[in-house]
Every structure is written in structure tokens, then in C-alpha cells.
């Protein structure tokens, strides 16, 4: 390598480092906007005044209740620390089931605590959903094997 090539390597790496830092800072500053959803805990701790909101979490076990006509469904989204009740009127995706990850878009229905207006409490926050999306996890298991696993140990998962 001659001097000219070393110079070029130096200037290119400087350019890449500067660009990397710039983009890193932009992405860090926009973190809140890039996140697709709030987890229940993030929502409760946040001071957002948005009415239309997207939350993500797991469908709490044994919390899914369809109404008598079967058109509307109530369930609870949990991140195993906080919970938010959801009401939804419409079609659910294939992967929707108890324990499944979901991303729910909807209107926030809440009664803010009269004494501390900026503090949310879990029991008073609910979502009237307009869209329910199922989140698939990264595990791929054969259907037959999954049945065996469940038979073997009911508390495996």
C-alpha cells in the first residue's frame, strides 16, 4: 500500500465514523417514534396525552371473553408487570390466542386519577381497539412435537 491509498482508507473511515455517529444520534433521538408500540408498563409510566395509541404485549391467559353474539371480544394485554383491558369489535388474525403476543391499535379510554393528574394507574386504563395484530415469536416447532411436549409436562411453558 502506498501513501495515497492509506490516505484514502483514512478519509473513508473518518467519513463512515462521522456518518455512523450522526445516524446513531438521530435514531437515538427518535427512539420513541420508531418504537411501534407501548408496552403496558411504558404506557402507564408515560405522560402521553395521545388518544390513539398502539400497545403490545401478551394476551393474558383465561382473559379472552367473547360476547354472546360472538362479534365483540374482551381480553387483557399484559407484559407480566402491568395489564391493560382491551375491547375489540372485528376479525381476529389466525395466530390470536391466549398467551400470544399481540399489537393492538385503538383509542385510550381512561379516567385519570383526580388527585394526581399526570399519573396513570393500571386499573383505570383501557383500550377500545380498532385493529388487533398477532405477533409471532421466533420459535418454530413441529405440530406433533408440540403436542408431545404439552402431554409430557403441563407446566413446561
Amino acid at each position, binding site marked *: *500500500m502506498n501513501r495515497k*491509498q492509506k490516505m*484514502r482508507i483514512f478519509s473513508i473511515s473518518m467519513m*463512515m465514523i462521522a456518518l455512523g455517529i450522526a445516524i446513531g444520534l438521530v435514531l437515538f433521538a427518535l427512539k420513541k417514534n420508531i418504537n411501534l408500540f407501548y408496552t403496558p408498563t411504558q404506557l402507564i409510566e408515560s405522560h402521553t396525552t395521545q388518544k390513539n395509541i398502539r400497545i403490545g404485549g401478551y394476551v393474558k391467559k383465561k382473559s379472552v371473553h367473547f360476547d354472546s353474539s360472538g362479534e365483540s371480544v374482551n381480553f387483557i394485554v399484559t407484559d407480566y408487570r402491568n395489564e391493560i383491558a382491551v375491547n375489540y369489535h372485528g376479525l381476529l388474525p*389466525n395466530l*390470536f390466542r391466549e398467551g400470544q403476543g399481540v399489537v393492538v391499535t385503538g383509542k385510550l379510554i381512561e379516567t385519570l386519577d383526580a388527585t394526581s393528574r399526570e399519573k396513570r394507574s393500571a386499573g383505570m386504563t383501557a383500550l377500545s381497539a380498532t385493529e388487533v395484530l398477532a405477533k409471532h415469536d421466533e420459535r*418454530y416447532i413441529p*405440530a406433533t412435537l408440540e403436542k408431545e411436549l404439552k402431554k409430557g409436562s403441563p407446566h413446561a411453558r
Partner: protein
Amino acid sequence: MWHWLKQNFLPVKFFYQTSTMLLPWLIFLFVILFSYGMIAGLFFAPADYQQGDGFRIMYVHVPSCFLAMGIYFVMAVSAFLTLVFRIKIAAICMSCSAPIGAWFTFLALVTGSIWGKPMWGTWWIWDARLTSVLILLFLYLGFIALQSVIYSTRARERAGALIALVGAINLPIIHYSVIWWNTLHQGPSISKFATPSIAPAMLYPLLAMIAAFFIFYFIILFIRMQNKILRAI
């Protein structure tokens, strides 16, 4: 050492001869891996416990995503070699890779979308992974557009190399998007260092498909590069 390498392995003529010799072998390997991956993936791999047979689209989707990013990585390395060492063959490799990469990115987006509708419930969502891959597609298209408007070969190669290098920043963003931010797209299944979260019977066809897609890329790349070399003479 460097001088020796440059003298013997980087001239265009050496590439032309070697690739002509390699091509039949690559095609042979591709046919074997691709037919194994296709047949085992579509017929013999067991259905998923949640998605049923719908998961089989991953045998096209995942290799396409690997290629979309892998080809851009090849372009970025070639861009570096073009800018620093002015290696002719690297510039040719860079400009011949771009359309292939663009098509595989497109394929990744389309197959993901087709899978997303029944599984997630939506064709498209502006989450970090999907958006960053869309940006990758625009980078490819931008590169191709830039290449086609500059007439002088030298200026075209250097401008293209610069865009390819700058765009390479997007690669780590795509890969870590599902870890850094909340997304609808799931986390990595096979590229994490711990044990993969896919059952072996489903994993082997997938690995074969990934290898087959990469070999396919090299076959097409070599043919395109040879054509470009012949046209330049």
C-alpha cells in the same frame, strides 16, 4: 504479498477464466441444494405448531432477506476496494450486483407481506424492520438510477461506490432493528449465537435454501460480469 495478489488474482482476465471454469460446478451445486431444500421444505418438513403449513413461505422469505443484505455487503466491500485501490473487477462486481440485490429485496418484502396478512393480520406496518428493509430497496434503486445517468465510467464508478458505502450503515440497523426497538416483526431465529429456535427438521431445508440462493446469486453475478467485460472490450 499485496503486489503478488494484485498481479495474479485481480486482473479481469483471471476473473473471466476462473469464473468460466467455476460456473458449471456452481450450477450443479445449485440444482442439488435447491431441489433438496424445495422438496424437503415443502413436503417433508413438519407443519408448525401455530402457523400450520403457512410457515413454509419462510423457505423463500428468509433466504431472500439474507441475500438482500448479503449482496449489499458485497457491494460495500467492492465499493471500498474501488475507492481505495481502484480495482477494476471490484467496480464491475459492484454495479452488476445491484439489480440482483434489488430484486431479492423486493422478493423479501413481497413474501413477507403475503405471510403477514394471514399471520399478523396486516399486509404492511411501519415497524422498524420493515421500514429499514424498504430503505434498503430504495438504496439499491438509487444506486441503479445514479449509475444510469453518469456517462463517464470513472465518475460513475466512484459516485456509485460512495453511495454503496454510505448505504452500508443501514445493514446493522436492519439486523438490530428487532432488538433495539419494539417491532411487530419477530426476533432472529437462526442468526443468533445460542442454539437456533427452529426444530432441526425445519432448519436443514432452510439452510440448504440459503446456500442455494447464495450460489444462485454468484451464478447470475458471474454471468452478468462476464457480459459486462465482453461488452467493454
